């Protein structure tokens, strides 16, 4: 495997965020779309966790769900989101809107996907910082805000002069780094990065990822990196969660997943990654993801699975720990000892 994997870092075993049985459904005119249908995973302090899957797998919806910014006609219908903050555990899913608003940015921050349009076109960058900080800390004097902003801009590699500019005067990469700076301005415990580099070219991509890594190290924050590019994710994260059709099908360290991919879908994904040595035909993953409107019973990967069995059509496989800290939802491993979720 020619993908360079992030060097092993020491990661704490204390949890900072624990998602349990999260379900996000969209109630549309045509029916109920089960975008996220029972996701569970645990994020540890200072850890980098990658959430990978193809379009429509539910990874972005999971991120929005954690932030509680799901918009109509979607709703969180089940599950809890345990945040371990200041010696207590808070269930984000059951907070009142105003309480959740206070938690956003201060405890859990998100770097948005399309930073092209995520900044208010009629407000300067410095005003974005003022808005963000004052929304949570009421009486901070302006001078302090400016100081903090300059420090943050430096951390992401931007000149202080950027502060006076309007968003349309910045390039895509600069805007994305401003978003990173905004996300960390209150030193949150969890940073969710939703495809932060999709709209950028490769060179800028690397710069942004390096910035994100540096920032994360500085703050000892945990990061959930959502994306569809396995190769990119593998170079950054410690652990990976593979999503398919609204469910997690495999969780493990990057090493584990690349050395020994358990779920057939994961295998196909890894096989489709181009390498420098490989010549010949590239294989994608044949077929289309299922409709989430009225999902069939049984394993959702059944129609596309090269290793499918009779039982797969009728019974949905639960996520089980196949080897230590390596979980997969596949009937091929069900004979092993059962263990219920939460990696």
């Amino acid at each position: 495997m020619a993908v360079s994997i992030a060097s092993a870092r020491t990661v704490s075993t204390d949890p900072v965020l624990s998602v349990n049985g999260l379900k996000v459904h969209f109630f549309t005119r045509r029916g109920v779309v089960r975008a996220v249908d029972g996701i569970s995973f645990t994020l540890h302090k200072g850890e980098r966790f990658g959430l990978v899957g193809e379009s429509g797998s539910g990874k972005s919806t999971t991120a929005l769900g954690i932030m509680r910014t799901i918009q109509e006609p979607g709703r969180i219908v089940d599950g809890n989101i345990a945040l371990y903050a200041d010696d207590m555990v808070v269930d984000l899913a059951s907070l009142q809107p105003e309480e959740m608003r206070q938690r956003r940015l201060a405890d859990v921050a998100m770097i948005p996907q399309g930073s092209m349009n995520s900044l208010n076109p009629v407000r300067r960058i410095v005003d974005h910082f003022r808005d963000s900080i004052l929304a949570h800390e009421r009486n901070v004097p302006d001078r302090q805000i400016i100081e903090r902003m300059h420090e943050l801009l430096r951390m992401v590699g931007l000149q202080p002069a950027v502060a006076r500019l309007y968003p349309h005067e910045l390039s895509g990469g600069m805007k994305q780094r401003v978003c990173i700076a905004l996300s960390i301005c209150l030193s949150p415990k969890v940073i969710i990065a939703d495809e932060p580099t999709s709209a950028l070219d490769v060179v800028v991509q690397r710069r942004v990822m390096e910035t994100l890594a540096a920032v994360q190290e500085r703050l000892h924050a945990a990061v959930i990196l959502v994306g569809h590019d396995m190769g990119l994710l593998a170079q950054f994260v410690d652990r990976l969660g593979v999503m398919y059709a609204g469910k997690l099908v495999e969780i493990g360290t990057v090493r584990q997943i690349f050395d020994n991919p358990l779920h057939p879908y994961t295998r196909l994904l890894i096989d489709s990654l181009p390498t420098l040595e490989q010549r010949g035909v590239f294989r994608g993953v044949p077929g289309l993801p299922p409709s989430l409107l009225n999902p069939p019973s049984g394993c959702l990967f059944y129609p596309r699975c090269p290793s499918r069995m009779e039982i797969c059509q009728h019974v949905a496989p639960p996520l089980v720990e196949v080897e230590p800290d390596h979980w997969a939802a596949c009937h091929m491993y069900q004979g092993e000892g059962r263990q219920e979720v939460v990696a």
Partner: protein
Amino acid sequence: MSWRHVLKRFGMFLFVVWGAATLNFFLPRLAPGDPVRQRLFQMSTTGGFTQTGVEEMVAEYQAKFGLDKPLYEQYFNYLLDMARFDFGYSLTLFPMKALTLIMDALPWTIGLLFVTTLLSFVIGTLLGAIIAWPRAPKWVEGLAAPLLTLAAIPYYLLGLILLYVFAFSLQWFPLSGGYEPGTRPTFSFEFIVDAIQHSILPALSIILSALGFWALGIRGMMVTTGGEDYMLYAETRGLRGKTIFARYGLRNAMLPQVTALALSLGNIVSGALLVEVIFTYPGVGSLLFAAIQGADYFVIYGIVFMVVLAIGLATMLVDLAYPFLDPRIRR
């Protein structure tokens, strides 16, 4: 804001004014017959003097009004006159100059228009924005339907309804005019109160309908703005609802709203003129009406010219102010 741009915009303004003046010049000349001769014949039949001598009078007038000179010379003199706002003499109230009549009526119209446009725009925009905001109290939704109804009714029809109900039937307000007939306009307190009383119904006719228009406009813009990425990101950063509403939502929705204002000035003025006619309000509208009825062409053209000038000027000012609202458009 570069001087080049300001100059360019001013040039556009002059172009419009010139175009209107030229149209004013050529249109009546395209129609058969000429106003002076017609007018004199009209006067002669009503006044009862004989046909003889009318031709000489026509010739006299033509010489006086320069109608016997070649076309291009007439046009050139006409443009010069326009530049000096010399519209000629009123045919019905000769020897009053058209400009005098217009200048007497203009303050009333400007006052009415300024107040009504300001009030309806500000109140309407705020109302519409609140209606569009999902976290607004429930009863606010109920305002949408009546506002829509009002917006659909033309100002002058609303004026007729208000006139009949409140002035005639209930007699709460005066029936016509800008002030009690017989009083002389002064800057005294009584006169001002009287003037305001007379202007309430005309103002309401405009305000109520325009309010609906602005409210519905901003409501649409707020919905469009609401779907923008920066709104979601603002919520993601945990900004307060009020901040998001005012600084992220309304502030951005205002941009197309202001553009709409600049573009509807023509319609607003047209509507206001008709309202004046209904209430016999002593503004430019009533003057125009009287001029049409009396075939007082010079007054008509003078008014048209002034109105185009005023609206062109106002539109230009709004246009030039736009970059201050939208930093993406800095010339």
